[in-house]
């Protein structure tokens, strides 16, 4: 296809040409950035979490006398165990995706103190006996805690638990001791130290890191018996029993402590709540992109239809002097291809600029380069689809039009 006549014809319609190029460019810039934002959020929502999310429910119990926590905890655990269908029960102080984060930073040398810059920030999970079965964790190395390692009042209002053993996640083990086994190694934060006895598969933190995926897994589990912070009872059952187990667990705990505040939730609902904002943002972005592409496509249809109408006579003349229908069809397709190409080249530059601005203002990541050709391809395709209708009508113009007055 000879493109010189197309270019010279476009030159005669400078303003509409510029407008359509600008529209495609803007659409391309918005599309690339929106898709990038969508993919980041979807990736976050899809982060794996090595526990039994489907079978887990949690019941929190607040407002009971801290002095009685020892006997209360034993009584509550026993009451919950008696619920039909419950496979395991434990008590913990927090769960993944609850936003209830107890953070601390540890080093790997004995002189590390909490304020050291090179330390790693870690979430502390205080867990009671049998937490591994209740949460459905997967042991990668070493062992879980022995019964004797669970000490009552191990926190006792301090910032760190009074124990010397810890289980860490795979991601934390790789961060602290890359290429080595973490077993037997020690986490330090003067004057406390904790020896790693086990490594479990990656469990999410209560609050995720948006910029660094593996940071969302830096967890350390500490054995704690009854303590004032241990107020989240976790129960595991089959997904089919889950809702009934939750309801009965709430009733049982409320019955034994009528003055307490009892709140139950399935882990599924905890997850949904955590991601609710992210989820709605994804839908908004998808909707805006879809509507914007539709508007762009209809704009191309409208403008090309107008050009076809305007050039009916010229098309007829071309047909009369020997051009085939395919030639006419190709003419409009090529013209659209040229317009789209100019648009996406400008659009890719704009998309990159917008990304730079967003990186500075909103701490977004740099957009990987392959988003640009992806956006370009999408707009090329949309352009070709949009132009095919009017182009087909143009190709249907009979040669006899050449002999008629306009």
């Amino acid at each position, binding site marked *: 296809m000879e493109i010189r006549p197309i270019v010279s014809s476009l030159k005669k319609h400078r303003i*509409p040409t510029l407008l359509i190029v600008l529209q495609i460019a*803007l659409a391309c810039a*918005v599309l690339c950035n929106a898709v990038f934002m969508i993919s980041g959020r979807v990736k976050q929502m899809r982060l794996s979490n090595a526990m039994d999310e489907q079978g887990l429910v949690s019941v929190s119990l607040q*407002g009971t006398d801290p002095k009685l926590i020892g006997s209360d905890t034993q009584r509550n655990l026993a009451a919950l165990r008696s619920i039909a269908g419950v496979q395991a029960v434990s008590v913990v102080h927090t769960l993944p995706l609850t936003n209830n984060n107890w953070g601390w930073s540890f080093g790997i040398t004995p002189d590390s103190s909490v304020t050291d810059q090179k330390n790693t920030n870690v979430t502390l999970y205080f867990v009671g006996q049998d937490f591994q079965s209740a949460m459905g964790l997967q042991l990668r190395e070493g062992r879980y805690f022995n019964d004797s390692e669970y000490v009552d009042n191990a926190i006792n209002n301090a*910032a760190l638990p009074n124990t010397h053993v810890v289980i860490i996640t795979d991601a934390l083990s790789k961060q602290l001791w890359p290429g080595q086994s973490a077993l037997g190694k020690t986490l330090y934060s003067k004057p406390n130290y904790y020896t790693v006895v086990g490594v479990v598969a990656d469990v999410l933190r209560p609050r995720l890191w948006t910029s660094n995926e593996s940071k969302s897994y830096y967890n350390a589990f500490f054995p704690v018996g009854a303590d004032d912070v241990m107020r989240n009872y976790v129960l595991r059952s089959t997904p089919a029993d889950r809702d009934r187990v939750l309801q009965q667990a709430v009733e049982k705990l409320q019955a034994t402590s009528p003055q307490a*505040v009892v709140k139950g939730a399935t882990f599924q609902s905890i997850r949904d709540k955590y991601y609710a904002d992210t989820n709605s943002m994804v839908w908004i972005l998808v909707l*805006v992109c879809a509507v914007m592409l539709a508007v762009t496509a209809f*704009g191309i249809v409208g403008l090309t239809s107008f050009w076809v109408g305007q050039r009916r006579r010229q098309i007829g003349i071309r047909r009369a002097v020997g051009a085939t229908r395919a030639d006419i069809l190709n003419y409009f397709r090529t013209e659209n291809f040229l317009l789209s190409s100019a648009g996406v080249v400008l659009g890719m530059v704009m998309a990159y600029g917008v990304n730079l601005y967003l990186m500075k203002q*909103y701490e977004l990541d740099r957009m990987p380069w392959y988003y640009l050709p992806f956006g370009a391809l999408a707009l090329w395709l949309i352009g070709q689809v949009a132009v095919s209708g009017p182009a087909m009508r143009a190709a249907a113009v009979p040669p006899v039009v050449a002999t008629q007055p306009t």
Partner: protein
Amino acid sequence: MFAYYFDLAFRSLKRNKALTALMVLAIALGIGACMTTLTVLHVLSGDPLPQRSGSLYYPQIDPRDMVDYGPNVEPPEQLSWVDGMYLLHAKRAARQALMTGGMVPLQPTQSTVDPFQAVALYTSSDFFPMFGVPFKYGTGWVDTEDEGKARVAVISASLNDKLFGGKNSVGQVLRLQETAFRIIGVLGDWHPNPHFYEWYMGSYASDEDVYLPLTTARDLKMEHDGSTDCWGNSGGDPEHLETVNCTWLQFWVQLDTPASVADYKSFLEHYSQDQHTAGRFLRPPNVRLRNLMQWLDYLQVVPSDTRLQMWLSLGFLAVCLINTVGLMLAKFMRRASELSVRRALGASQRALFGQLLIESGVVGLLGGLGGLLLALFGLWLVRQQPADYAELARMDIAMLLTTLIIAVGASLIAGLLPAWRACHVAPALQLKGN
């Protein structure tokens, strides 16, 4: 003349229904998306206390050690107990209040209501007059009750409705964390947004249920929620928050004149210098005194997703407008022969220009109305979201007018270029072509 142009515009728009619908729809979608996000942004970045915000200030000082010290570091966002109490008792501002939030178990005496975690604000007596908090029944507490760690409570209107059916509950007993409190006041309708004075409990639409004296709350070791930032070897031991090197309290002052603002700032500097000399503050004086709106800016309370959405919808509106300009241009140019006939019959370029502009204005008005409906629908969708600000997403008169003005303005601008081009047709040339 105007009416005639309107008539012409409607005729012309009716002649090509698909194209008109496309233009109106494009404007409506662009305006709808844009106004939805702008309204949310407008609501979220509003002034929580329009009458008072100008004289409310948030003092910051820097009591930390030299770890991570650098030039131009911002002081911590909160105060320690020692500094907070000193500034509170110094009474150098017209009014001042120290505060922190927390959750406290509420055990109703009514058997019909289950116990629940009440959202509490622990503060000092000036809180109520300083922020102009309205009372439905009773009053707030006074200085002596702060000092005496009195077991008194002020409750919100919604808690009063929940527990006492909206009746005057002043004098009644409220059981919090196994302790009896006497209710001395019930608030009226008070929902400042953003929730500026205690932002850790959520920046929007999170009102407290109960207000207690800070001293009383500490006396009963009530749990404090929010951030506790410590330095040195201090842990955030909740039993000894009064003495540890941690910041966990928020402090507001009322300063009515520029002179008193300058005085207060030098007071903060002098205090920091004294503490530095005494060896308690290791850093040189580093103070800030931001007013309410500057403070909200600094905290960036508006969620960044909301601002991203606004930029996205502006980009979308631009695409829609460019689209409309293109279509309008196509439409006007197609009517070149009609226009040239009118020119030949004596219509001036200005008259043609005016007529075409009215036609594009009509498209804009229709698009604006459609956009308004879409924005109302969009805001309804936002309100269905679980975000804490969702309830606030409502359009007010100002935003409604802005919507219409933007819609018509945008489409007039969109019509300007096509009308300008189209009214330049040469009368004779077009006639000859026919």
